[in-house]
């Protein structure tokens, strides 16, 4: 695997868009681009241009112009991959993208394999392991918060925090070694009180990082919200209102939506994953009771439960109103700690009196919030968004704290924490330094797994296999 060839690939998602970016990387990237580029004004050649410059011109082949493009030049080593890189912004039709890429392939480029740009960046020392992983996260991040974390990680924020701890622990480990190897001499012993303090500090930081995984994971994958409600109470309309565009199919016929809608919607920069469920109405029907069981399974996984019903139906049917109350309380009792939001949809279809009456009976259920909306008329949708956001503990995010999203890092942190815990116990019981050292070395090993200070061949395989083409 010697990278002396020049690779090309589409850097933007495949499919038509307004514009697309095609990237070349390798020794000959600029030379090859030159053979197909004609500057719009002067007779300039890209090879003579400075690094980090943009040039307007045409991609031409045998006198035929394919597209008008902007070409950005990054010269080795000051580029993403550390090689010569050319990025061509062309118009986004599939046809143009393919024409240009085919042209470069004919001119001597090779199609990049998955993750190859990032692999090259890594090989050229542009990224360390955790940064390379962050790139993968960055690409797949589709909301502001997860994007922010990935960016922070890519800049090295997280691994540098661990590297600092690792260094401190390493220093102490060497003090312990000193007293072991020079026991016969007049050396001072490593100060156990100071060491205990350090271990406490490390535990604190590790604990914070480990806890942040819950937040980080949620931010990365979206916060799961279960929507409980009978068919045709307006779940799709609600999602559309939140999405602010017509995406799910909405109709008046009950059961139009598929069994489960799982739609991710970004609200205030946080991803929410909405999981549709069947209702939980008591029934003797076998099939339906299976559905109810499923609903509860989904509520289990969710972090927020939304109970949705139609204001008009309930207001006009006393029996129904009671059923709803029972159902809400049932959820409440089963999941006392889960935020429960009761939403009366179609508020535009009931009178003010009916509103008051509903509010009176339903807003008093302890441990739940109640609100009116009309998804169709866009009434109360903003308030709903705010309400959903209030369930998310974004304190850590706002404070710009380090957040763990990568489960490999999470595993290493957990393991490091267990070892540090053992070191603490050993210190408490006055364990001999040579035995303490075993646990310390293991903790260092797990820190190293994060910072890349030790190498592990499996690790690399996993990381690079997870890259999509382009970056």
């Amino acid at each position: 695997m010697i990278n002396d060839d020049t690779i090309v690939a589409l850097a933007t998602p495949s499919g038509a868009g307004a514009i697309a970016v095609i990237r070349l990387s390798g020794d000959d990237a600029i030379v090859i681009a030159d053979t197909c580029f004609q500057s719009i004004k002067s007779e300039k050649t890209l090879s003579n241009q400075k690094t980090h410059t943009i040039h307007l011109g045409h991609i031409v082949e045998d006198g035929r112009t394919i597209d008008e493009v902007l070409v950005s030049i990054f010269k080795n080593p000051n580029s993403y991959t550390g090689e010569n890189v050319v990025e061509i912004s062309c118009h986004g039709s599939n046809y143009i993208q393919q024409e240009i890429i085919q042209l470069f392939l004919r001119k001597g480029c090779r199609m990049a394999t998955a993750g190859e740009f990032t692999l090259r960046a890594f090989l050229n020392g542009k990224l360390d392991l955790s940064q390379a992983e962050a790139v993968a996260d960055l690409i797949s991040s589709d909301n502001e918060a997860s994007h922010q974390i990935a960016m922070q990680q890519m800049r090295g924020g997280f691994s540098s925090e661990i590297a600092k701890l690792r260094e401190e622990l390493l220093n102490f480990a060497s003090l312990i070694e000193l007293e072991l190897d020079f026991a016969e001499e007049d050396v001072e012993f490593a100060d156990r009180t100071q060491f205990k303090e350090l271990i406490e500090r490390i535990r604190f930081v590790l604990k914070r990082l480990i806890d942040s995984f819950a937040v980080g994971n949620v931010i990365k994958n979206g916060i799961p919200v279960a929507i409980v409600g009978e068919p045709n109470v307006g779940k799709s309309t609600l999602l559309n209102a939140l999405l602010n565009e017509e995406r799910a199919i909405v109709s008046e016929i009950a059961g139009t939506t598929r069994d489960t809608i799982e739609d991710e919607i970004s609200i205030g920069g946080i991803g929410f994953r909405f999981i549709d469920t069947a209702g939980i109405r008591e029934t003797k029907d076998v099939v339906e009771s299976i559905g109810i069981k499923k609903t509860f399974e989904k509520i289990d996984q969710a972090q927020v439960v939304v109970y949705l019903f139609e204001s008009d139906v309930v207001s006009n049917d006393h029996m129904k109103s009671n059923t709803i109350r029972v159902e809400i309380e049932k959820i409440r009792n089963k999941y006392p700690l889960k935020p429960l939001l009761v939403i009366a949809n179609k508020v535009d279809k009931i009178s003010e009196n009916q509103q008051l009456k509903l509010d009176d009976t339903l807003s008093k259920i302890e441990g739940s919030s109640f609100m009116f909306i009309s998804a169709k008329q866009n009434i109360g949708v903003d308030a709903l968004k705010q309400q959903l956001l209030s369930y998310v503990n974004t304190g850590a995010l706002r404070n710009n704290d380090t957040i763990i999203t990568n489960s490999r890092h999470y595993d290493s942190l957990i393991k490091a924490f267990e070892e540090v815990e053992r070191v603490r116990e050993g210190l408490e019981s006055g364990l001999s330094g040579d035995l303490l050292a075993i646990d310390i070395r293991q903790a260092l090993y797990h820190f190293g797994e994060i910072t890349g200070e030790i190498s592990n061949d499996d690790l690399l395989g996993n990381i690079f296999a997870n890259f999509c083409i382009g970056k």
Partner: protein
Amino acid sequence: MFNEVYDVIVVGAGHAGSEAAAAAANMGSKTLLVTMNLQNIAQMSCNPAMGGIAKGQIVREIDALGGYSGIVSDTSAIQFKMLNKSKGPAMWSPRVQSDRMRFAEDWRMLLEGTANLDFYQEMVSGLLVEGGKVVGVRTSLGIQIKGKSVVLTNGTFLNGLIHIGDKNFGGGRAGERAATGITEQLVDLGFDSGRMKTGTPPRVDGRSLDFSKMSEQPGDENPEKFSYLKATRPLTKQRACHMTYTSLEVHDLLREGFDRSPMFNGRIKSLGPRYCPSIEDKINRFADKDRHQLFIEPEGWNTCEVYVNGFSTSLPEDVQFKALRSVVGFENVKFFRPGYAIEYDYFPPTQLKHTLETKIVQGLYFAGQINGTTGYEEAASQGLMAGINASLKVNEKDAFTLKRDEAYIGVLIDDLITKGTEEPYRMFTSRAEYRTLLRQDNADLRLTPKGFELGLASENRLRRMEEKHQAAKNFVSFFETTSVKPEEINPILESKKSAKVNQSGKLFKVFARPNIDMADIRKVESVESYIQDHNLDREIIEQAEIQVKYAGYIAKEKNNADKLTRLEYVKIPEGFDYSQIKSMSFEAREKLKNIQPTTVSQASRISGVSPNDISVLLVYMGR
């Protein structure tokens, strides 16, 4: 005079040379030991002691493989101590004070009793090399001795230069001349050479000292020994060492000579060991310390000569004398020999393979200080390994190497050839990442089967090891299978402030508690009667105790060793072209090119090769 072709010619008869010669001869190779002075075989040039922390483990390993250092250390011992006994078993380190003259005599007798071994006294002035292969040596008389392989163990003799104050003169050791010719020839052959420095303290007349003013440092009450063989016996009487301290007055007197110190006036340019500093170095670097320990060690059973450990110096002899007279107990001291520093040539050991054969000249092996190490034990173990491998190569057999999780000897050689060394290299337990596995109590278990296979360790040695470990294993399973009632164990637990038990349980569980030791558990009737019935000796009892009490740590370390040595199996092809990996740092490429590691694991240990470089290497290796 020399018509026959030797299999192995060993040049130098110190600790490395003696072990090399013994190993090669015992493996059946026709061996010649050439030394400048046959009166001085196996001299202890510095302190009269063997073993110590990490070094004691090495002596046990040499013994387990079938070398002689352990046996000689036992027969010439005047005091035994197990150091670090308060720490975990990996730290327990045997050390003896030796009778310097008896040590050399016993070695010579052992060598003379070794079949296949010839001796010759002369200075070797050069090697005979043909087509990149060594074919013998040339002596200063011009005699050519043919040999299929040569082990160089020149110690401090190559262009040795002795410094005392502003005087200096050629010499390999006090009273002995230096060896010349070899360095120059090796450099011509393409070897890199360097200079190192070491030093030794004055020897004084014990009759002139007032020991009543010093604190006595006796040996262990129940002394053990080095050799696993029954042939040697623990000491029944011992000689004590003494301890005293320097003072601010002593330091001031020493400082008066600093302007004439070759260390400080720039005359000595080479690097000495940081962890074995001269007294002038100590007071200069640790100026805030107002006293330093001095250990006064007898040089033997019968001699009155004593060694002033901690007072290594190359200050002028009059300064040494004046300063030492101010030390408590030394008011009337008489000198036998002043301390001195010595500079000598060494060859950066990255020029060697794991077998200690040089990469440049086939059949040529280096061992001991010529490789930049310090210490009798380090030298002896290299000599043993070089002798073994020279013998194997001549007989066209597979090389013998030890891995880092198998022996300190493995750690030592891997460090040397992978990292090289800028200062005299001494072994520490912290250099061994699998320290818990490399204990002095199990060196026989680790290495005797290998020694037996090589033809070095006797069958008797192997049987003894097997019996010991079988007996220990049986004793451990006795603890695992035997229960003890609360009535019997609770009083014992109570006396050790350990929580009482409510019901009968296996002895193992109680014994594994941190504050319960063998003395406690022996109070249980069934344990004591097991020991009596099976006639268990101390070694076996101790072995069982280690296996019960440290089982968790040992298992953990073993697990780590297995996990981390996976890279050991990723081989790098010989002559791998690193220059093609442009993404690697320049430094890493250069280092890898020079050292030519055989595995990715070894590559990762080279200083200047970063984890990132290793990741890149792995990607290139198709991993």
